[in-house]
């Protein structure tokens, strides 16, 4: 059993800042010692008075003044390097679109040694011949329609594409892709800022 609890310890006791064993000792003592319990009463009253202090009303909005004093965000600046990267990327995009466009135009007329129309036609014919005899008239109709379309489209012409080995295509596309990614990573690069508590 402790003798008496000093005011400093009582203050820490009210703050719940004492270790558990000391808290238990103080509580046991306060229960048995009217003098110490009496000295605790004004401290409790002070805590209550501080806790009861009402908030003061704020009569004006402070945000207007704060926002007026905050520095304006600087306008984004495009550096010469970024300009060069934009230009290279635009050129890459143009070249890629040209290649894709040329391939798209060429495919219906030449697909190696066999035309795409022939491949498609064969596919449809094979599919239709597997149907029952009831579908024969439909097959004929479809064939006629297809052949009519073929007659029209076979009169169209498109520039022949220069034969380029597949490896060259892959190399060119991979190089352009790498250039594109490198450009974007340069453009999106931001200085990392360390975050930690003050």
């Amino acid at each position: 059993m402790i003798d008496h609890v000093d005011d400093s310890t009582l203050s820490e006791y009210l703050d719940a800042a004492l270790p558990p064993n000391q808290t238990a000792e103080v509580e046991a003592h306060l229960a048995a010692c009217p003098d110490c319990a009496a000295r605790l009463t004004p401290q409790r009253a002070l805590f209550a008075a501080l806790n009861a202090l009402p908030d003061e009303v704020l009569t004006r909005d402070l945000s207007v003044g704060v926002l007026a004093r905050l520095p304006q965000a600087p306008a984004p600046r495009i550096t010469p390097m970024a300009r060069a990267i934009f230009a290279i990327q635009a050129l890459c995009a143009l070249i890629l679109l040209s290649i894709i466009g040329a391939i798209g135009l060429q495919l219906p007329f030449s697909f190696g040694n066999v035309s795409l129309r022939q491949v498609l036609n064969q596919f449809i014919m094979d599919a239709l011949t597997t149907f029952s005899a009831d579908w024969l008239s439909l097959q004929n109709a479809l064939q006629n329609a297809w052949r009519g379309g073929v007659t029209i489209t076979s009169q169209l012409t498109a520039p022949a594409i220069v034969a380029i080995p597949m490896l060259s295509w892959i190399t060119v596309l991979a190089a352009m892709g790498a250039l594109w990614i490198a450009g974007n990573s340069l453009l999106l690069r931001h200085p990392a800022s360390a975050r930690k508590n003050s």
Partner: protein
Amino acid sequence: MRSYQVSVFNVCYRLLGERREAEDMAQEAFIRAYERLNTFDVERPFGPWIRRVAANLCLNRLEARPPVHVELDEERDETGRWEQGDPARARERAESAEAVRAALLSLPPHYRAVVELRHFQDLSYAEIAEALNLPLSDVKSHLFRARKLLAEKLQAHD
């Protein structure tokens, strides 16, 4: 910002005791917080952080000026809340609050700051020590002496 401005203003008002100055310091606290936003841990609540910033700013302001006897702002009575119900009880509460504010403002700056952080911001001793850059033993002694002075002032008032 609007969510926190009342509490930040009240931190400044309790520490400075003058409405206009408290408003200016509350604005200053938000600007300081904006400038040091990179030191704020986003995983922790913003309110305690900005209030701590405000308390430190006010403490710096108090330490920078010569000690003077601070009178409570007279404007407070005009803008304070009017309680509904018993006018005598409302007056009693208002007088009690005024006495507590006056007692707080009579404390030396560091004592005022530890009381603010402990009683109104509910910081632990260790957190107060960190916020005010004081040893833990100083926090305990400041708080103890501040409470003793407050109790004496309030007893004298009664």
